[in-house]
């Protein structure tokens, strides 16, 4: 089980994490807007996550935290 936490306040919706994910787990939210006016990234397919941390390493705002069981 992998837990991906995205800090939606800090996220600027750049989409680099979506590009980096090898399993297409992440997507930019189509409904949510954060205080900065961006569509934050969200975990769309949590069960596909392998916990490689590629998204977290590429995030320019260090908004992703990853925990593994």
């Amino acid at each position: 089980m992998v837990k991906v936490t995205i800090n939606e306040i800090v996220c600027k919706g750049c989409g680099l994490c979506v590009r980096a994910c090898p399993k297409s787990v992440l997507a930019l939210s189509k409904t949510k807007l954060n205080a900065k006016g961006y569509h934050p990234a969200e975990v769309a397919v949590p069960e596909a996550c392998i916990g490689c941390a590629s998204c977290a390493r590429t995030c320019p705002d260090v908004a992703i935290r990853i925990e593994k069981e």
Partner: protein
Amino acid sequence: MSVVFEKTQLLTDKQFHYCPGCNHGIIHRLVAESIDELVKEGKLEAGNIVGVAPVGCSVFAYDYFNCDMFEAAHGRAPAVATGIKRAKPDTLVFTYQGDGDLASIGTAEVVHAAHRGEKIVTIFVNNAIYGMTGGQMAPTTLVGQKTTTSPYGRDEAWCGAPIKMSEMLSEVPGSYYIERCAVNNNANILKTKRAIKKAMQYQLEGKGFCMIEVLSTCPTNWGLNPVEAMKWLEENMIPYYPLGVYKDKGAEQK
């Protein structure tokens, strides 16, 4: 639950002011994590770190690093770092500079710092444009690249070819370790971190001048979205600015 990845303590809680997709954030994190690891390995005291921030987009870098920081005049970060390192030789001193700061107004400072073999680490972020001032042509702008001051693309006959700092400084006898990296994918992000950490280790061992050039995107001023900008960097910048180690006196001696 074990933590696989979290924000390093060497970065403050302040949110980056950079545009969405700007690579500065990634490079800040790599610098902070490298320092953090050296502290945890016991090679460095936590209070013995001084960074020198430049003028440019990363002018507020002093707000983001959880160590002592100094704000230098435009381009003068290597000169300031020289003073700090000579006064306090046990300190880890690094400068963080963009291409407008290092390759344009501050070229003299960095060339002379390298010639003197100052024991400092310079992180040089090259995004081929002046970001903060609104996307004007920089010395590192590629031939044919459109900017606000080269609307028809950079003309080599008129403006010359883009300056290659890593190649230039690797010819300087005083430089110790020069490498060019990028943060366009996971493998390159890890390589960049390894390079930054290696440079800092060389400094702690009292070796000479080290510079890590990191290719970066500027989605806002390139007029591309962050994902397209990464692709543009891979297709245009990396062929002109080849990645790799340009000089490593430590490896030559082995």
